[in-house]
């Protein structure tokens, strides 16, 4: 499976998605949650979608308001994110003793 480059901003976005992997998210909501501007957020979302890690859907919200574009991780995306964060956690576990005086 090909994956995009995982920058710190991409990891922040993925972190938000993995909190509730099955939930559909809005762009503005993600922007507020990650603190990323639209100019940074959307290229990340587009790249994730390009690698089939993210799926998109238009949903109608309320009458008179245009539908919104929503995003959710695909099973492949969920798998990648879990593997990535699991790897990071294990790395942290190994490293932590060195910084915490061996108390971990």
């Amino acid at each position, binding site marked *: 499976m090909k994956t995009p480059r995982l920058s710190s901003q991409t990891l922040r976005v993925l972190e938000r998605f993995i909190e509730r992997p099955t939930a559909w998210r809005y762009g503005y909501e993600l922007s507020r949650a990650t603190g990323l501007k639209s100019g*940074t957020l959307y290229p990340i979302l587009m790249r994730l979608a390009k690698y089939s890690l993210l799926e998109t859907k238009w949903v109608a919200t309320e009458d008179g308001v245009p539908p919104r574009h929503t995003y959710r991780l695909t099973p492949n995306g969920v798998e990648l994110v879990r593997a990535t964060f699991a790897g990071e956690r294990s790395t942290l576990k190994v490293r932590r003793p060195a910084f915490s005086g061996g108390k971990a």
Partner: protein
Amino acid sequence: MIPAGFPRSIAIALLRFAIWIAPDDTHDWGRGMLSELNHIEGNWSALLWSFGGAGVLAKHAILAVILPGRHRGTFSTASELFAKEPPMRKPVLAVIAACTAASLLFFLAPVFRQAFQVSLAQWHDVFHVKLGFGYPNPDPDLDALVKRADQNHDAEGLAFVANRYHSQVRRAHLADEAVHLDPNLTWLYAVAGTGYLSPSEIDRRVSLLKQWDPQNALSYLMAAQKIGVSVEQSKEFPLGKTEENPAWEKEMDAAFQSPKLDTYLDRQRQLDHRVLSRYHLDDPFQAASGEDWYGFPIYGAWQCSFYAQSLLESGKSLESRGDRKAAFEKYFAVARFGQMMGDVAGFTVVMRKNMEQAYTRLGALSQTEDNNAAAAFYAALADQFDKAADKQRLLLRNRIQGSDVSHWNAFLVRLSGLGLLFCALLLVLCALGVVVRNRSLRLSSLHTSRLTLGIGFGAAFGALLSSAVLFVSFRPYSELFQRFLSKGDDAGLSELYSFLRDTQLPLGSQFNFGPGSWYVASWNIVFYFWSAVTILCALALSFAVFRHFQTRPQSSAAA
């Protein structure tokens, strides 16, 4: 006061435009950004949101132009392919065609064609083609004119070219030929210059000029100049002591005693007018190139000040010995010649200090002799002279540096000329791109992306706008040139000269008056131009390589 909803309206318009130019496969994303605007609190926040989103879409639009295949998906059917690249919109195409046609229509006007040629003058130096104002490169137009004038035995035609050739030797040769055909053109020896000629050749020309116009101080100034140069070169006298040379002093004395000072500027302009009309020359550079000597041969300016100073010192010496009459004559000679220079050549500035001293001494002498009326008269003359000198200094500075109006118009002409070329290039590239991608010339079968259409529209409109600005900016100078051609009205030639001089410098550079600065500036510009081209190419290549490695898909360890 900005209406509260204005930023949100701008945000919506901006995102809509960005979606319009963006590749089709990013439209959903763009619409997603647009729909989020309904949920963003705060109008300014909405605007900031749209800036970011529009930037992303614009980047994709540019990449789609640079790498056309990047945004192409796999098309399963022909109808899907055409859905991605819809047929060219007729109204947009009509507007592009109308703007292009209107821009091309400008070329039917001779004034515009001339303006376009003038706007190209900024590239002459970069690509080493001839310049309008005396440049060492051969000028085919002038060479052709010499041939025609030779065939017609036209002395005035030869004289016209003699004033314009860069080569001093050729100038002198043509001046000789013209004077041989028509002795009434002997004044040419003063205008065409005598630089780089042997002393005997200069003597011969000056002698002819003295015989032809013995009342004029100019020939004596030329002779004095020749002596001054040879004295400085021979080191016979210490540097700056030319005025101690008796021969030089004799010529200068004759010049100061001469009843008139004629620079032959009027004769030159009349001759230019006749020749331009006779040979139907419509090159404004040729009309104004005689202006570069500012109306007075440079050899006459500074030595007059030196001689005037020696006269003043001599007058003071006579005054101290009690010979007031002789002293008065010395001071009077300085004042008279200074006025003559100011009246004829506008070069009072170089003799300002001498004149002030002359008037002061004349006033003081008159006071000593209880001639209060004369003293008041000289005081009034001194006052008038001061004001006139200030005015002339301003005029001279404008003549040399050019007016703000001519600088601004020259800038507009150069900018619009560049804009026209750039827009024309964009239009041609767009048209070629569409034809090559569709492999057809039939309008109905041509399909193009919205970005290409947008660029085409922008280029066509830019071409029209550039044409209009070029025409409007050049028109006043064309009228000055036409007035000179048709009526011989030379009132605007100085303005035309400074305008044309500015148009020869590439955009962004400035003309600096000073010894050799013209050439230094020109060659630097050539260097900077090609350096900029090389650096931009290197940057573009680096960027392409960087983007290639950055966007290359990485293999996942998990896979």
